[in-house]
């Protein structure tokens, strides 16, 4: 029971991160390996707001998410769009975008390291135990879970019900045909990329409420988000959400039953199994 609830709480935040990456990879077709660093930047932002101005992290998201949106838009517009224009094939774009987002991620780490230093950070926000089925969980974890679910649900509704959401989904299915029906693909891609960044930064702020972080931890979150996206199937938002909970449960189970040092190893094992037995993801369709 403890594993189940802990896993679900963790899975909620993971779902949010993976949706951010899904937008960037599924729509904008950029494999953004700096995703985890945007998350850590969000964590540091929340930390800074909380310690310097006593702003509660949930409110801080209202400022952090638009800031992350603008930052990611600038990154996309000035660093990644030239690569999209330059590349002839999807494979070529993948290699270029992987290398340049590695560069961006290192720059993020370097800047965060210079500003905040290399120590581990955490702050105490609502660390009051709350009992669920006889086991105590911090209220901060529960709030982070609720926050993640609210943002993820909002994003899901926006994507499936509104006209601009429909545009993004059209670009995700086929950019060339989307252009034919009068969708500005460049604009939609930039929007998806920036929105993905904003969602990720919000996730970072939520995670910072209950977890310790440091300047170089981003890559761990990038890995986890990528594993979830592949597990659920690229371009499958529903699959992503299920996969996020699978990963949350698997990690909590390994941390409780075997060793907390092996959480990434557990995620990785899951990844290997998917690659071996279902490379298109749990919910993905067979590639034609």
């Amino acid at each position, binding site marked *: 029971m403890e594993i189940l609830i802990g896993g679900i709480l963790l899975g909620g935040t993971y779902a949010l991160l993976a949706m951010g990456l899904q937008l960037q990879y599924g729509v904008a077709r950029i494999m953004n390996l700096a995703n985890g660093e945007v998350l850590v930047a969000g964590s540091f932002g929340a930390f800074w707001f909380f310690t310097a101005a006593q702003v509660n992290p949930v409110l801080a998201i209202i400022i952090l998410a638009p800031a992350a949106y603008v930052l990611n838009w600038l990154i996309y517009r000035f660093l990644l769009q030239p690569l999209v224009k330059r590349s002839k094939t999807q494979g070529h774009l993948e290699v270029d975008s992987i290398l340049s987002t590695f560069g961006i991620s290192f720059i993020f780490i370097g800047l965060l390291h210079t500003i905040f230093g290399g120590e581990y950070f955490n702050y105490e926000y609502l660390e009051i135990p709350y009992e669920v089925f006889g086991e105590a969980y911090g209220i901060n974890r529960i709030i982070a879970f609720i926050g993640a679910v609210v943002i993820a649900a909002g994003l899901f509704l926006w994507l499936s019900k509104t006209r601009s959401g429909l545009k993004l989904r059209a670009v995700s299915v086929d950019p060339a045909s989307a252009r034919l029906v009068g969708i500005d693909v460049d604009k939609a891609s930039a929007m998806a990329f920036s929105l993905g960044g904003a969602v990720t930064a919000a996730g970072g702020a939520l995670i910072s409420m209950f977890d310790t972080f440091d300047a*170089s931890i981003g890559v761990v979150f990038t890995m986890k988000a990528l594993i979830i996206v592949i597990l659920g199937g690229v371009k499958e938002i529903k699959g992503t959400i299920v996969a996020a909970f699978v990963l949350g449960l698997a990690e909590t189970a390994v941390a409780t039953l075997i060793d907390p040092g092996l959480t990434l190893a557990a995620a990785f094992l899951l990844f290997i199994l998917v690659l071996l037995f279902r490379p298109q993801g749990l919910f993905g369709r067979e590639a034609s």
Partner: protein
Amino acid sequence: MTTREVRNFIIVIMLFVLVALIPLGGSGYWLSIGVTIATYMVLSTSWALFSGPTHYISLATGAFYGIGMFVVGGGIEVLPYWSLVLIAGCIGAVLAALIGLATLRLSGVYFVIFTLGLAEFVRQIVTWIQTTMGTSSGLYVLTDLNDTIIYWELLALGAIVYLVGWWINRSRLGFALRIIGNDEVVAVHSGINTAYAKVILFVFSGTVATIVGALLAPRLSYIESNIAFSPMLSFIVVITALLGGAQKLWGPIVGVIPFMLVWDFLSATFPNQTTLMLGICFLLIVYAIPNGFAGLIEKYVPKMQGRS
């Protein structure tokens, strides 16, 4: 062989002998940076043999290197050092074959992600084994091998890598790889077993990286998982190879030498900004010199010769 090839071959051998004489100069600084350059020369060249033609970016170098170190560290009290280097090579080859078979059938992105996590995965497993078995986190490797001998060992390994690379470029395998790199669909339709070709090359480059780790273990003398599985190593290998140009056999070395000299100076002057600088290097390579120094040389040298 044509006269031109014979001439080039003789020049290469003379350069090799000249480089091998560096330790006799007696300068500790040059020897130490020589070992670093030789290390990355071997790692980058073997990396480019696989990644250059196939365009699969491998970040597994650090994992293989760390495994090599730990094989030596774990067995040094039981077995002679030389046998451990061989065992490390075999373990690296088997592991690379397994990884290759599992991931190289899929698109490049999966492979990058997989190799990105691999070093951390192996590190967590090694740390976990050490804590559950109750051994200490570090291992001592005490031998009487000094920097000069390690340097020569690395040069010898480098020579082997070059010979194999030269042979591959002339063989059917190299031809197959170039077709795969240009268009995998075409390669499949011409009857090339693409998975087999990619796995063979990946096994070679993984084995070499493991052996390099095993060769360098005596230099560190104290091996700890955080140092052996440093994520920086894989990235520097990628950068130096791309900076030089991964398409040519001689490309990586053109990148390694200037990069390591500048890097050594910069990381000594700004020790806290190494990650930031690494990031800038990545962006510079992608935007300014996508084909590396080798690409620049190939583009401009014929022009200048044409003019004179």
